[in-house]
């Protein structure tokens, strides 16, 4: 109870409090509001299951309230200017020997930015959920999970040390599992949730071991205690720091769905679409990017790890983009698109362009949330139309869509904005963020990754146009009886789309590159995050890092920006024209993909590969344990003991004849033997 009071009241103990420092306002409230929302809605799932009003008010309001508090903090922090991170300490969580871990929150430019993104996008998606989940029987339960997710995500980004971050890290994984398997009556959905959880655990193992290593070398796990002295404590490029960062990155590949642990994210689309938008696109999956950026100093000290992160990121960006070109499920396309865009973010933070990575994280949160919510609107409308006519076609399959822009103009328009944004068309948000990553990879000396990222960017424009054409353009493929039931989604759903569409347009303007100096807010985000990334950049600069002034093929940033947006526009126009000529047929009549398309449609057979290489050998091993060790060795030993005992008992029972004379004989014999023993 005392702890709760401390959390609400603005009692702040700052680690190194100095005049002019930033003092967070109501820091505990940011966490308590979503947690309280989760508790109330969780209770509601049992007590007022049929009540739609309480969850509809409590769920979104808890998050909007937290957003407002974060917003106040953001402006307060802006007013203060650059400063050391403000640490808010609550109570000691664990204390054992040298180890002392407190429940501490860190307020710096990076964590406040992440809090803004998390609570801001969450608010919009919570409102949207009121419309999307309105008729679901698990309405209150849904908002409980969603509130709880926001709570854990905030713990993750606000943590001031690794263990508290890990609590958030695991908590979001739990909520992800709960929400993927939200419709748990469906066996496939439930096992998709399980898959996500198990694959994430593999990554978490890396995170944990990295924490142990950090503790053995620093004796502390707080961010300030590790990142401050890291350049002196650890050898540049040494085995220790390389191992720590690679293990941390293993955690990131799990959470952020990078090769080789990307397999869970497409399956995670089994959850409700707003969940896909919030957890599996905008926030949770970006936790890995945040972690790499947060531990930027460590990564800067380990050039090998940096190269690994960047290569995995770029590789994933291209790999996932190729798969996205041949998927028919609208959410699967977006899922692979998310994996691909996360690859870009890792490319950014991996090469050391931390701001670029975080910048893309932010803009991606806007346009990918918009894309998912738009696809949710489509699915919602399709589902209703099919439902009203008692048809059972898949509302997610784009082969069943077509020509929806006539029925859903707002959804179509907002999704086109997001498509242009993700494709990198000037002046939408994706143009600035993605272009900065690609430009950085070219000028930081990663020529091969630069080529890969350019190709992936063109693929992005291609598969997104394909999605738009198949869904919104051409002829409608739903059948004449279904078509009249199609209508635009209600305002509670399209207003969030519109908000995100605005953000998708203007979100990139917070960090306009210096090459385009006409607009006043040049590099605003870069300057904002500078205090956080300065130590890492300093380490890189000390060890000979230099940014080139032109791309590998020559040419300045402005030229390449024009070329990039021109190329993307060209790809969009060509894809649009090519696909508009193609005749699509509904999913039930469509032929199986063949050739290269089949490989891409089946996701390069990675799931099958894992099944053969990991799952089945493990199953065989467990079967061997069961048959040989358990049934053979353990059961065999116990059975032998039991039958041996019974054997002895059977021999003993031979003496029990029931004849008095026999008993007497053995009795007297016994007496004689004992007497003889005494006497002799």
């Amino acid at each position, binding site marked *: 109870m005392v702890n709760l009071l401390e959390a609400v009241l603005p009692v702040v103990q700052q680690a190194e409090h100095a005049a002019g420092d930033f003092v967070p306002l109501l820091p505990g409230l940011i966490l308590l509001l979503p947690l309280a929302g989760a508790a109330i809605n969780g209770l509601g799932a049992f007590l007022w299951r049929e009540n739609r009003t309480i969850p509809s008010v409590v769920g979104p309001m808890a998050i909007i309230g937290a957003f407002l508090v974060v917003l106040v903090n953001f402006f307060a922090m802006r007013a203060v200017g650059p400063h050391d991170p403000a640490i808010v300490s609550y109570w000691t969580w664990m204390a054992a020997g040298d180890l002392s871990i407190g429940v501490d929150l860190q307020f710096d430019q990076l964590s406040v930015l992440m809090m803004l993104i998390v609570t801001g996008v969450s608010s919009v998606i919570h409102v949207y959920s009121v419309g999307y989940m309105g008729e679901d029987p698990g309405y209150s339960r849904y908002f409980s999970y969603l509130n709880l997710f926001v709570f854990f995500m905030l713990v993750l980004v606000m943590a001031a040390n690794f263990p508290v971050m890990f609590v958030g890290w695991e908590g979001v994984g739990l909520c992800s599992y709960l929400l993927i398997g939200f419709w748990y009556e469906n066996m496939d959905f439930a096992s998709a949730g399980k898959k996500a959880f198990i694959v994430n655990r593999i990554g978490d193992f890396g995170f944990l071991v990295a924490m142990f290593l950090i503790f053995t070398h620093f004796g502390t796990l707080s961010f300030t205690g590790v990142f401050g002295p890291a350049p002196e404590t650890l050898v540049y490029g040494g085995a220790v720091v390389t191992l720590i960062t690679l293990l941390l990155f293993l955690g990131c590949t799990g959470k952020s769905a990078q090769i080789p642990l990307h397999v869970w994210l497409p399956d995670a689309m089994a959850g409700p679409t707003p969940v896909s938008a919030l957890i599996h696109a905008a926030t949770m999956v970006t936790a890995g990017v945040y972690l790499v950026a947060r531990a930027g100093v460590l990564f800067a000290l380990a050039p090998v790890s940096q190269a690994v992160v960047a290569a995995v990121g770029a590789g994933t960006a291209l790999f996932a983009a190729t798969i996205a070109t041949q998927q028919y499920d609208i959410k699967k396309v977006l899922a692979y698109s998310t994996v691909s865009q996360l690859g870009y973010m890792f490319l950014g933070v991996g090469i050391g362009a931390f701001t670029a990575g975080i910048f893309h994280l932010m803009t991606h949160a806007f346009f990918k949330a918009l894309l998912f919510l738009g696809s949710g609107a489509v699915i919602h409308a399709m589902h209703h139309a099919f439902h009203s006519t008692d048809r059972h076609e898949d509302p997610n399959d784009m082969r069943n869509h077509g020509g929806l822009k006539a029925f859903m103009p707002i959804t179509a328009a907002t999704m086109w904005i997001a498509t242009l944004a993700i494709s990198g068309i000037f002046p939408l948000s994706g143009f600035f963020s993605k272009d900065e990553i690609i430009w950085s990879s070219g000028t930081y000396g990663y020529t091969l990754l630069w080529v890969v990222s350019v190709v992936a960017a063109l693929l992005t424009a291609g598969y997104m146009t394909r999605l738009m054409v198949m869904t919104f353009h051409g002829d409608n493929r739903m059948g004449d009886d279904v078509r009249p039931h199609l209508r635009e989604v209600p305002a509670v759903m399209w207003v969030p789309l519109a908000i995100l569409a605005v953000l998708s347009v203007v979100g990139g303007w917070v960090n306009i590159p210096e090459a385009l100096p006409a607009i006043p807010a040049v590099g605003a985000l870069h300057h904002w995050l500078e205090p956080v990334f300065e130590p890492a950049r300093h380490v890189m600069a000390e060890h000979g890092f230099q940014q080139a002034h032109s791309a590998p093929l020559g040419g300045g940033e402005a030229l390449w920006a024009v070329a990039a947006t021109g190329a993307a526009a060209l790809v969009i126009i060509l894809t649009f024209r090519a696909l508009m000529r193609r005749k699509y047929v509904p999913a039930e009549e469509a032929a199986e993909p063949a050739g290269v398309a089949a490989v891409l449609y089946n996701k390069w057979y990675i799931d099958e590969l894992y099944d053969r290489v990991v799952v089945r050998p493990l199953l065989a091993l467990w079967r061997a344990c069961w048959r040989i060790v358990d049934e053979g060795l353990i059961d065999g030993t116990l059975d032998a003991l039991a039958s041996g005992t019974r054997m002895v008992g059977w021999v003993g029972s031979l003496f*029990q*004849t*029931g*004849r*008095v*004379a026999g008993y*007497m*004989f053995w009795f*007297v014999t016994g007496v004689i033997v004992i007497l003889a023993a005494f006497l002799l």
Partner: protein
Amino acid sequence: MDIEGYSLVLSALLFGIGVAGVLLRRNAIIIFMCVELMLNAVNLTLVAFSRTLGIEGQVFVFFVMAVAAAEAAVGLAIIIAIFRHYELVDVDRFNLLKW
């Protein structure tokens, strides 16, 4: 050999006869009597030793006699019950009380 020696020899003989009777005879009444014989052989030993070792031996004899009397009552009752059931008292024929 003094009186105690004779008494002990006699009691050993009586005890041996009792053991032999219990082992060899089949009639439950006879076995029962042989058991009594063994008890009284022991009584005789106790009395004989009490001459030199003290009065406790004779006190113990009374206990044995009291217990033997109780045992006789129970034992005879069982034998009568068996006889009523089977019309015989041959111990070789009662072998149902086993595993």
